[in-house]
């Protein structure tokens, strides 16, 4: 099972994502943004960071990188794509997941540990997460306030597209509508979330809850591979 981690100019969690994907049992390699070839990746991760400095709008410039065409095709073929933090912003700008990410309500960069509820376990990104478990992970972003018109939010919720929500006393760090922390594409093969599962993949670092998410991804991609 091969995970490709896209490196945009300004990505800064690419190495973390590769490290954590390997802990989750995948073969993981970087993919250079100017090379449209996915080099046989079964799943693609768009990592966190500040692609193109997050100038203009987070994710706005990165979505035109040559590799994004291939990522889109991969997604259209049903391939799995996970966007973390800046990767989520790129996915949203590219229209691969619904919604937009505005500046945090506090207008400040927020780093803190948050708790997430997982609304469903029947997805490629959550299948390995035990029931009733909330996930402890850090967030670190300045533009993570999830926004979408109310009717679209209703529709998103109705189809089970809100996969992660901020809960507990740590609260909603950015003012996201309806506490949305992560969403699923309509076909449920593309997921974007603001918190960082790859930074919560070892007990030593404070939590290994994120590994559950990455293991789900790796397992699901492996199963799809076997089925194909």
């Amino acid at each position, binding site marked *: 099972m091969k995970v490709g981690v896209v490196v945009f100019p300004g990505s800064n969690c690419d190495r973390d994502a590769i490290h954590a994907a390997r802990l989750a049992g995948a073969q993981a390699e970087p993919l250079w943004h100017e090379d449209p070839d996915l080099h046989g990746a079964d799943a693609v991760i768009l990592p966190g960071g*500040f692609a193109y400095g997050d100038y203009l709008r987070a994710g706005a410039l990165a979505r035109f990188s040559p590799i994004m065409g291939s990522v889109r095709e991969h997604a259209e073929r049903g391939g799995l794509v996970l966007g973390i933090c800046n990767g989520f912003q790129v996915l949203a700008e590219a229209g691969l997941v619904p919604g937009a990410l505005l500046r945090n309500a506090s207008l400040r960069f927020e780093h803190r540990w948050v708790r997430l509820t997982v609304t469903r376990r029947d997805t490629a990104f959550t299948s390995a997460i035990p029931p009733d478990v909330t996930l402890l992970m850090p967030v670190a972003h300045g533009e993570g306030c999830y926004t979408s018109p109310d009717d679209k939010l209703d529709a998103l919720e109705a189809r089970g597209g809100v996969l992660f929500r901020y809960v507990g006393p740590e609260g909603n760090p950015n003012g996201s509508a309806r506490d949305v922390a992560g969403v699923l594409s309509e076909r449920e093969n593309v997921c974007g979330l603001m918190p960082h599962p790859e930074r919560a993949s070892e007990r030593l670092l404070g939590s290994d809850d994120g590994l559950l998410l990455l293991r789900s991804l790796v397992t699901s991609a492996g199963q799809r591979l076997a089925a194909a």
Partner: protein
Amino acid sequence: MTVAERPPRPAVAEVMHTPLHRALGLTDHELGVIGGRLGRAPNDLELAMFSVMWSEHCSYKSSRPLLRTLPTSGPGLVAGVGENAGVVSIGDGLAVAFKLESHNHPSAVEPFQGAATGVGGILRDIFTMGARPIAVLDALKFGDPSSARTRRLVSGVVRGVGGYGNCVGVPTVGGELAFHPSYEENPLVNVMAVGLLEERDLTRAAAPGPGNLVVLYGSATGRDGIGGASVLASATFGDADPQKRPTVQVGDPFAGKLLIEASLELIERGLLEGLQDLGAAGITCAVSETADRAGTGIRLELDAVPRRETGMAAFEVMISESQERMLAIVRPDRIDAVVEVCRRWGLPVAVIGRVTDDGDVTVAGADGVELARVPASALTSDAIVYEREGRPPARSRRAPAPGAPELAHDGLPERGMDPGAVLVSLLGDPNLASRAWVTGRYDETVGSDTVCGGAHGAAVVRIKGTAKALVMATDSNPRVGALDPYLGAVSAVAECTRNVVITGARPLGVTDCLNFGDPERAEAFWQLTEAVRGIADACRALGLAVTGGNVSLYNESAYGAIVPTTQIGVVGLLDDIGRLVHPVFRAGSDVVALLGESTPGLGGSIYADHAGAVPDDRPPGIDLARESALQALLLDATRSGLLRSAQDVGGGGLCVALAECCLWGGIGADLQVTVGTAPAVELFGESPSRVVVSVAPTAWDALRSLAAGSGIPLRRLGLIGGDRLRIRLVGEGATGAAEERGAGVADEVDMPLDVLRRAWESGLPRAIGEAG
């Protein structure tokens, strides 16, 4: 260095009629010496180059003789003072690079950009050595937290540090934040960076091999940071349009990130012979320093320098401080590969000259016309040096005034102060309260290596693929430094190393940043001299080398100089992350104890601020032999796995240390402290060389015999448990004594953790008006 830390220069209008060298900040004497070095009068471009290189910031002309007295060699040191950053070997073929640096003046002018470019600058010093930056610590000092100016500065600086560090993806894992009225007009922004490298990638900032190419890559060059020298334009070119000469450098962290990746790739692939970052004095500094270090010369083709703007004069190109640029020395057969790497990372790159064997920095203009020729050494290693005169102030607080009684009591009971209430107010003091408001603006987990961030204690960053971790801290003691600059420096070194040692890590070396006033004033120079003597004494006593540092002088305003501020940074190595000792109380019924004992003196303490303690009180002294023995004991105790927790007793004294252990651990304690006639010394005094530890009950005897063997006093205080912090006072200074004096105050601290937590968490936001 990042951009020049420089004293204000005369305004353009004022200097129109002054001789050029003076307008550029050079004295008549210096002009004479330059003539001597050249054997002729300098032309205007050469004068500009000398003026920036012979500035205090680049030449260390006032401090160089002092810095020579520091202990600068030690085991494992593979690069030290004189390099961009100190590098110490840590085994497994790995080494760690670290350094502190100031960006005070730029941050005072434009806090956001000043702090951001400060982070960018120190990061460049780290990766110039071939190291990947893995951590940043920021040490910030401001004036009155309730003033509008301070609030603007705090907000701008914190956004600037985060804005750069977060974007380049280097976690900001710790630092320091202090408020003192003397920083009101002159805040201090000192930033420490730490990097990790394969020892074989160690890169020198030298230009060896005549015939090699001089390559400039990174951002294009603009008119950044040449405001001071713009008099040259008015004098020479009759163009003083200030609009065209921005003095504020704008940092571009995105370009900074690309620069890190490109540089590390170039180094890893072995494509470079030398690498130097560009900071203050720009190209002039980079070429003269690299040539001088290698004993070579460099001939520059000025027109080859990529520019951001049109119509730049030669001097502007030579001294521009545009950020995010690097100078590489490259063998001709490797230039194509170098260009390819830079292009891939989207960075402009150009060959701007060649290494020569004549020892000169030569600047060639269009058609090879020689615009300047100066011996590289005259600009750097052979720059002018001053033996300045130092004089202690007329009234030093070091010794008690003649005839003054030894301090017998401290006013705590007399003033009817309840120690519990004092503790609450200390925990809420902006100097001691939770830093979450600041640390929450910093990405401290990027890199997936942060074991402990800035929430409490030293920062701990593991090294992937090994069992090792690096432990890092930065400390200063300006309140003590204000009373006694020697003691301020000694205690900063002691405290900083102690903070590293209590985790179980062995300190690898010391970096320092000396923030002082105008060295041309005898008192300020005396303070600097005392501080350097203090660092040297402390490092020798603790067996540590100074691996590098920075000097920032002229920290003065219309309201006077800042208090002498010696900022210290220490990095330690923990061989086995499994043995990491945290500062927090962990388990009920563990035994709490204090290692070390308190000594008299409340001068310089936070308590003194709150209680207005006896005005002429001294700060407590420090016994370096005792400190060294304490640190050795701690390393022994952690190595043998005895300690469940260890916390330094610092600002706010024993009570605050105990409260922190409880708050951070989320568990209370029931304790008893014996107080003499001066209970505040015991409870809130800041005498050094003390550590609060906790051990499992079964480990108590072992700890006691270890302590006895090392001659360090050990006092059992009580047990961990519950959800209150209770400290009963016993002994001479307790109940009976207080009641005799008619105060009738409580002789104990007995506080629910919730109350303490609220005070501690709300202290900073409230002080700076960011509550809610």
